[in-house]
């Protein structure tokens, strides 16, 4: 679950972190009203991706009229496919320098990591590539959280390579103890996979202010954060276009694990690794996969039907490759499920089914009799489906 900047900043505020005063605007008039109230403001597109500044999605304005005009322009934009439906209007900060502070998952260390950088305002990956000395990391004990001495060390590590901060390093480190403790505690309490302030602005009077905010919450922990899930669902409700892939939105409603791709061979498998391999085989045989759809461990007739219907919603799909490892599911049951789904949905496009499991010969016989192409190996199935769909444009 990705929160927008203004939603992240609401959480920052509750956690005691400083953010610029701001108002949400859905119309140019609301943006003008915000400027009338706050004075000089930044009008910022609210989209769930980075790079909006470069795309022209941020404007600093001095008057309500300018705010109205800029909001009008930004609200009509699409940024990398995401239509801008609201802008966040916040007091334009006087910034002395930009830092970075983030909490994210470090898979290699199997820990959350706190990353502090003396260079902010750009992607942290870019800082890591260009000036790695300016970045320092801390892997706190997940039960105790980061301790003040650890945070000071983190700060001094990064600041020692930033000569412009040398004189105020002590004061900065002490402010960072406060900010980092609060940010980490927020990340933990929200089950954040990423909780990032970039830039963390140092103002001329020495305050650390979150000039931007990024917050992504672990979907596995959604049950602990129903309020966030509901807020996101509410915000998206009523919008004609969410910017999200409409097929993926539909799949989520159907409870399916689905990723939409650009090709024309529909792919259904059971298990993530096996399904990924199914796509790889299609590509290897010269075809282009249209999707990734994992129906999970078992392969009940109902799940197969739901999956087939989903995959065929995409008109680009010319045929479907179903790849099932039966395990304890019987091959004839899988076959009957596919046949029933094909009949019920009136599918006329070619279907190739490869499956293993007990009674797989009987399953293959049933498929063959029903006019569905059975295959004994995934390689053979990939070859067949590609042949059947390649020229059927």
């Amino acid at each position: 679950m990705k929160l927008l900047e203004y939603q992240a900043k609401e959480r920052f505020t509750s956690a005691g972190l400083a953010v610029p005063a701001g108002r949400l605007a859905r119309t140019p008039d609301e943006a003008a009203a915000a400027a009338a109230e706050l004075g000089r403001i930044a009008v910022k597109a609210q989209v769930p991706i980075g790079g909006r500044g470069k795309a022209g999605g941020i404007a600093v304005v001095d008057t309500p009229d300018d705010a109205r005009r800029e909001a009008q322009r930004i609200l009509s934009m699409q940024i990398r496919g995401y239509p801008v439906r609201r802008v966040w209007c916040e007091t334009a900060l006087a910034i002395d320098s930009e830092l970075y502070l983030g909490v994210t998952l470090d898979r290699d260390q199997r820990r959350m990591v706190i990353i502090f950088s003396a260079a902010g305002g750009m992607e942290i990956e870019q800082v890591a590539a260009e000036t790695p000395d300016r970045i320092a990391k801390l892997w706190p004990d997940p039960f105790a959280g980061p301790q003040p001495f650890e945070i000071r060390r983190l700060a001094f590590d990064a600041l020692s390579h930033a000569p412009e901060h040398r004189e105020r390093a002590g004061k900065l480190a002490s402010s960072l103890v406060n900010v980092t403790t609060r940010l980490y505690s927020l990340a933990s309490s929200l089950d954040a996979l990423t909780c990032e302030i970039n830039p963390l602005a140092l103002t001329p009077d020495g305050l650390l202010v979150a000039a931007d905010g990024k917050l992504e919450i672990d979907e596995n922990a959604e049950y602990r954060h129903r309020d966030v899930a509901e807020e996101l669902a509410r915000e998206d409700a009523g919008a004609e276009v969410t910017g999200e892939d409409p097929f993926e939105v539909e799949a989520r409603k159907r409870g399916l694990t689905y990723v939409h791709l650009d090709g024309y061979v529909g792919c259904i498998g059971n298990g993530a690794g096996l399904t990924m391999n199914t796509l790889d085989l299609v590509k290897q045989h010269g075809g282009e996969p249209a999707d990734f759809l994992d129906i999970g461990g078992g392969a009940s007739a109902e799940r197969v039907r739901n999956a087939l219907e989903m995959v065929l919603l995409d008109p680009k799909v010319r045929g479907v490759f179903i790849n099932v490892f039966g395990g304890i599911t019987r091959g004839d049951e899988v076959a009957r499920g596919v046949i029933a789904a094909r009949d019920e949905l009136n599918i006329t496009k070619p279907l190739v089914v490869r499956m293993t499991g007990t009674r797989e010969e009987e399953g293959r016989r049933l498929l063959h009799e029903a006019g569905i192409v059975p295959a004994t190996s995934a390689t053979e199935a990939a070859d067949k489906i590609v042949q059947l769909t390649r020229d059927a444009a």
Partner: protein
Amino acid sequence: MSILVDRGSRVVIQGMTGREGSFHTEQMRAFGTNVVAGVSPGKGGNDQNGVPVFDTVADAVEATDANVAGVFVPPAFAADAIMESAAAGVALTVCITEGIPVHDMVRARAFVDRTSGKLLGANCPGIVTPRQCKIGIIPNHINEPGPVGIVGRSGTLTYEVIQGLSQAGMGQTTSVGIGGDPVLGLGFTEVLQMFAADGDTRAVVMIGEIGGSDEERAAQWIESSGFDKPVIAFISGRTAPPGKRMGHAGAIISGGTGTAQSKIDALTAAGAAIADTIEDVVRLTAARLGAPAA
């Protein structure tokens, strides 16, 4: 020989009275696993099909000397169950549960690391030493004893490899599913180290996928340690677009890291044979074992 589990393993199943837990407990017993106890808080004192049920893992261990735990409890309670068995002194905890919050797993992993116990998973299919012990959900009938060690992140793809090798007459010492989550217990490197020390394992099949850099680190270890058993690697997700989770919570290319190509390159440099299909895995394993190809 084998790694991690064998006929001496005394298994306690956490969540044994639940739907998944009870079904798979019977499958495991049919396989020959010595299930000595179940744990279900509040149901202690009962038994299920002749297996005694305890309220806590500590009680189960005290009464039955259980030394391996299988976790079949729902995601919200699974991290706690992992910590409970590690605290009770169980040597290996195998967690099947999918969907555990990452922060919970970070804590559970740190907790287990402070004990002498090991963790396999979560979100894994489990572990099998053919004819001796199975913990988890790998189908019973596909496993045959033999010289190949298998370690994989995926469930069904690992089953395919087991079945393909078994049908070609190449059985397994032990098959290990390490799981599809971003934060895991044992990784490829730790399992390879165990296969290195196992005299009966003559070749290892690694089943990796996009996301993270566990395969790359294993490749580094293969090179630096001089691991001399043949490695056959099967990596899925070459067609996966960046930034999308491909089914597994951990199968995601992020910030340019975790691509299939990076894993294939690292493993190739370490001398592993790269397989594109199950048939390739079988063929390459046969060739490396010096056995007749099927």
